[in-house]
């Protein structure tokens, strides 16, 4: 009901003004005649367990962007990614895909979205290959065209194709889920800590993959504790979240 109302953040008292803080840097489009952003969010406000995580966050992510969400633990990075993916609903504001609210074009949006969260989504009762094949099929890849064995080889899982996932390590589970990136047609990649439990070479390979992806007109939104090594400062756009203790007014 308040959807279109203009809101302002009113700090609790004057002494707090220097602390007001969702330090969001909206990402400006570099050229004047840019196509509309691939994924954007307007006035996002997130409240969890009666705590304000971020508020009035406005983001625009264009094709070719790689965006890193930064902030201390508990500052709402995961919440932001989940809201962008449409898994969580923001308290206020909305997320737009190609300028349409994602709730109104769920299936189309999901065709262009690849989200990998903290949990790998790998079933222990199925083999690495079966897990990958199911995930790919569910997300719309046709069975025959894809060589799951070759894809698993990309993430260094050759020889483990037929092992039940319950016999594999956490890092290997993560690799199974990351393998989807190699076969993805999705333009928007939202990755929550993709490098967790991945070794140096793996990280390097993933960064190369991100480069190829953005070069092809995709975009990547990710959180990570380590910096991206092979990207220059200018290439990576940053959204910084911080703790806030502010009150919020509608």
């Amino acid at each position, binding site marked *: *009901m*308040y959807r279109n109302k203009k809101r302002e953040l*009113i700090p*609790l008292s004057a002494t707090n003004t220097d602390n007001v803080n969702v330090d969001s840097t909206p990402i400006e489009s570099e050229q004047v005649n840019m196509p509309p952003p691939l994924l954007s969010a307007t006035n996002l406000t997130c*409240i*969890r*367990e*009666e*705590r*304000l995580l971020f508020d009035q966050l406005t983001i625009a992510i264009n094709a070719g962007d790689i965006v890193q969400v930064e902030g201390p633990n508990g500052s709402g990075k995961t919440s932001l990614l989940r809201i962008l993916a449409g898994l969580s609903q923001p*308290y206020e504001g909305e997320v737009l895909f190609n300028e349409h609210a994602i709730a109104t074009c769920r299936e189309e949006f999901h065709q262009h979205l690849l989200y990998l969260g903290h949990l790998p989504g790998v079933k222990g009762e199925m083999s690495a290959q079966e897990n990958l094949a199911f995930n790919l099929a569910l997300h719309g890849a046709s069975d025959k065209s894809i060589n799951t064995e070759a894809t698993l080889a990309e993430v260094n899982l050759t020889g483990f194709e037929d092992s039940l996932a319950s016999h594999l390590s956490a890092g290997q589970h993560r690799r199974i889920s990351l393998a989807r990136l190699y076969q993805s047609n999705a333009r928007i990649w939202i990755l929550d800590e993709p490098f967790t439990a991945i070794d140096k070479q793996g990280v390097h390979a993933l960064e190369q993959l991100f480069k190829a992806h953005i070069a092809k007109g995709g975009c990547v939104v990710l959180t990570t504790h380590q910096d991206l090594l092979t990207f220059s400062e200018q290439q990576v756009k940053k959204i910084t979240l911080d703790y806030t203790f*502010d*009150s*919020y*007014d*509608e």
Partner: protein
Amino acid sequence: MWKWLHPYANPEVSYHFAGRMLPWLSALAALFLSIGIVWALAFAPADYQQGDSFRIFYLHVPAASLSMGIYLGMAIAAFTSMVWQFKLADASAAAMAPVGAVFTAIALFTGAAWGKPMWGTWWIWDARLTSELILLFLYLGVIALHSAFEDKNLAGKAAGILTLVGVINLPIIKYSVEWWNTLHQGSTISKLGKPSMTADMLWPFLFCFIGFILLVTLVICIRFRSEVLSRNSIRPWVRTLVSTQLAATEK
């Protein structure tokens, strides 16, 4: 269509509105209930069959109809919140659940206490008592679900879905219980029914009924205010309200 409702869609406005209603509601509820209950206990005639045990009727029937009515109210609130994303409706549904549960318990208890002299036993699987019992389970489920979630917004959404599923099921359950009851009990036991009500029974009944409705509205208003506060705890108006109230109590 919703324009006239719009000012009340603001949590602050509706919080204060509910606050202003409190004295009126408590005064009216006290008035109606005291008149109704004294009349029911002392002045209304005894039933020609059930004697003075009939006086329990003045409690049982209002409690039973309110228990159903509150569930229906909760379902309407849940529906409103789901369809129009109307957050205050969640708060009001959360406020209604415990009240409804208490009135269901009252209906059950008075039903049993009325049944004891009539049937010679505290509990009988009478259709109305059985469906009240099941209604109590439904209420307890909603309350338990509310308290299981830490985030009040999520709790409201989950409880809303459950309430709607429950309200679709409620008529089916009621119908099935009634059907089951006629199947198994036959006509040997007279049900708790409405005996022919004369005018001097109707008036105290109406006073009691209206009194209970006012009382329920009062308690819902009190709980609604707490729900609104805790759901909006990070808003400036709540902060200032809380600090001024605390300052007032400390003096």
